């Protein structure tokens, strides 16, 4: 029957069509599923305006599966031309495996300060393999209506923070903190990384851990877990089964006063009608202490060494380094702050508040991002687990520190 035959041909043809796009189209690999529309409606059209000959397609994978599926696609030769780079070790491993192109002296690269490039350079700082894009900043969001009603001020010190939390708890109509541990990652990335730098003195503490001069069991790290354990006492019994989405909903519905946040959350809460919120920086231990914030280099972009279209890919990266892109990205992808040296005027009020902390506080990145993720057990997975346990009161700060230290000392020479 002719129809059956046609169907067969069509089925076979789709296999050919499903192959990776033909040269001429640049495919971007990324984990930013949430930004797909922004890329398709704003960023790529802006690029095409100045580069009409180059087609670009944004093809994201969900964040938890990105690294493993990307590695598989790179090995199988089906990965896209442009690869969104995680900071430090994950991308460095790809570079060492020969998957990412060397970008020394690439056009646009000199628009970034050395401090931004370090996340995508070899340990000796001599070779660069990804163009920096943006960082995320951690802090706390608070519900302005609740604060007004209870006559509260955004806290600046640890003591003030707990006073505020106590007041909200006593009042009883709202949850003090919108925070849960079911998904685990928030416990590390938006609680521990958020409040910690003030106690381990930002970069100094992080570097001491890498050089082996400090241990997780030292007082500056245990102090951070102590505060975390105290924060945990403000979570209801529901917290252990509360997911990230649950916490977002609690804060969005105005049922919780304070939300420990990553700057990317701003974009989500901006969509909630009637929610008035502001931000405050992670509180310092004592008034007058120098503050430190987690200003984490989050995303960069590199070129697949097997790309058939490297010239166009380099043009695209050069544009990523431009002031035009810095402005678009910072203002359209709210909560991601450009790493460019080009001054950018951030328009969103809360994002503006957060980026202003860069001027008054010292910036640091997440504790384990550089070098400490290279062995088994992976410090990232360990920190998720340990911090969730501390928040739930199932593990004491001292034991948390001991567990982290023994895991690290198992494979990391300077700590042995």
């Amino acid at each position, binding site marked *: 029957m002719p129809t059956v035959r046609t169907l067969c041909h069509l089925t076979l043809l789709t296999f050919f069509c499903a192959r990776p796009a033909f040269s001429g189209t640049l495919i971007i690999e990324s984990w930013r599923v949430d930004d797909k529309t922004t890329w398709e409606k704003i960023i790529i059209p802006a690029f095409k305006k100045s580069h009409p000959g180059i087609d670009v397609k944004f093809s994201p994978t969900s964040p938890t599966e990105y*690294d493993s599926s990307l590695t598989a696609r790179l090995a199988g030769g089906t990965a896209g031309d442009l690869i969104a780079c995680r900071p430090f070790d994950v991308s460095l491993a790809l570079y060492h495996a020969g998957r990412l192109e060397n970008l020394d002296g690439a056009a646009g690269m000199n628009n970034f300060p050395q401090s931004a490039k370090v996340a995508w350079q070899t340990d000796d700082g001599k070779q660069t393999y990804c163009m920096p894009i943006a960082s995320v900043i951690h802090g706390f969001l608070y519900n302005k209506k609740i604060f007004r009603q209870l006559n509260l001020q955004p806290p600046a010190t640890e003591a003030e923070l707990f006073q505020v939390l106590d007041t909200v708890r006593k009042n009883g109509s709202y949850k003090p903190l919108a925070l849960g541990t079911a*998904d685990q990652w928030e416990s590390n990335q938006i609680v521990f990384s958020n409040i910690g730098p003030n106690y381990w003195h930002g970069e100094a503490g992080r570097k001491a851990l890498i050089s082996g001069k400090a241990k997780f069991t030292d007082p500056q790290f245990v102090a951070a877990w102590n505060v975390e354990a105290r924060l945990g006492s403000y979570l209801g019994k529901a917290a252990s089964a509360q997911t990230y989405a649950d916490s977002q909903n*609690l804060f969005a519905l105005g049922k919780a006063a304070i939300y420990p946040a990553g700057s990317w959350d701003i974009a989500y809460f901006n969509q909630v009608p009637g929610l008035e919120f502001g931000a405050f920086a992670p509180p310092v231990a004592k008034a007058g202490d120098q503050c430190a914030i987690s200003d984490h280099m989050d995303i960069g972009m590199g070129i697949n060494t097997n790309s058939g279209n490297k010239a166009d890919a380099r043009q695209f990266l050069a544009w990523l380094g431009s002031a035009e892109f810095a402005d678009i990205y910072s203002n359209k992808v709210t909560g991601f702050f450009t790493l460019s040296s080009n001054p950018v005027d951030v328009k969103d009020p809360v994002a503006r508040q957060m980026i202003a902390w860069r001027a008054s506080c010292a910036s640091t990145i997440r504790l384990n991002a550089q070098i400490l*993720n290279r062995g088994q057990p992976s410090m*990232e997975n360990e920190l998720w687990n340990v911090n969730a346990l501390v928040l739930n009161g*199932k593990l004491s700060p001292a034991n948390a520190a001991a567990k982290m230290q023994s895991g690290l000392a198992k494979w990391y020479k300077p700590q042995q």
Partner: protein
Amino acid sequence: MKLVLNPPRPLGLFRWRNVTGNFFLESMLSISLQKKTTTATLLIFLAPALLVYTLLSAYPLLDTLRLGFYSSHDNGAVSFVGLSNFSTILLDPDWSASFWNAMLNNLKFFAMHILFQNPLGLLLAALLSLKNLRFARSYRTLIFLPTLLSVVVIGFIWQLILSPLWGVGEQLMGLVGLADYFNPWLGQEETALVTLSLASVWQFVGMPMMLIYAALLAVPEDILEAARADGASAMRIFWEIKLPLIYPTLGLITILTFVANFNAFDLIYSVKGALAGPNYSTDILGTLFYRTFFGYQSQIGSPTMGAAVATLMFLAILAGVGLYFVTVQRRLTRFTF
């Protein structure tokens, strides 16, 4: 049609088999339908299934077993390392701790299914096979329905029901005065695995129910009539006549449950993620394999190490099935009718 076994005879195509002395295969191949058929016909009918099975099931399995003996390097090269992957998993303190934790959790997961799913399936099937039960068909459909749903949907539904923030669980328990006993079961180390096991039991209880129901219907009516004529009560008929006659089905269900449980992954992953929290209390072999093979977050996956975990899973299942065949199945066949 009746199958008869022909005496071994030389076959043109498979004559060489005789040289290797493979009389078993020889006689298998010479089974023929009473109507004269050629070996070629048999092969043609066997080929599609054999080919698909070999290509999609046997070959990947064998290749996985092979891959477990290798180690991969950063540059993509793979080298033979013998048993070192297995010794790492079983002897390295961290690896063995997480492996045995996953194994133990898997056994608990299986135990929950044996304790609840299959007895419940038996009970439901026995109730459904009662004569004069009204709405029997509706019950059957409703109870079987969750089996057809996607595991992701099941995970999501139960997460919502049990959510201490928005769930109906606490309210429903409050209606019978048990609100104080409500806990965030999915979030507690002590209860998370049991809760997920019960959700899985809820989803799959339809399977044993259907199989047992079918077996109960197949119990010959004359035996039951004879029992009734002898004055046996309904209870006695069930326990002493029907139940022994469906033992083979119960055995089959046990082994199917065992294999399914040791291959389970999806429900845990969809509710708790690949880190199987809190504190790895819901980690089973499937999630451990996923983390090892594909990696998770900054943990880089290792196909060779993952293959070693998969091999150990395969061996565990093989041992379980082997044990079942040696100890249970051989005795059960005596009861078949």
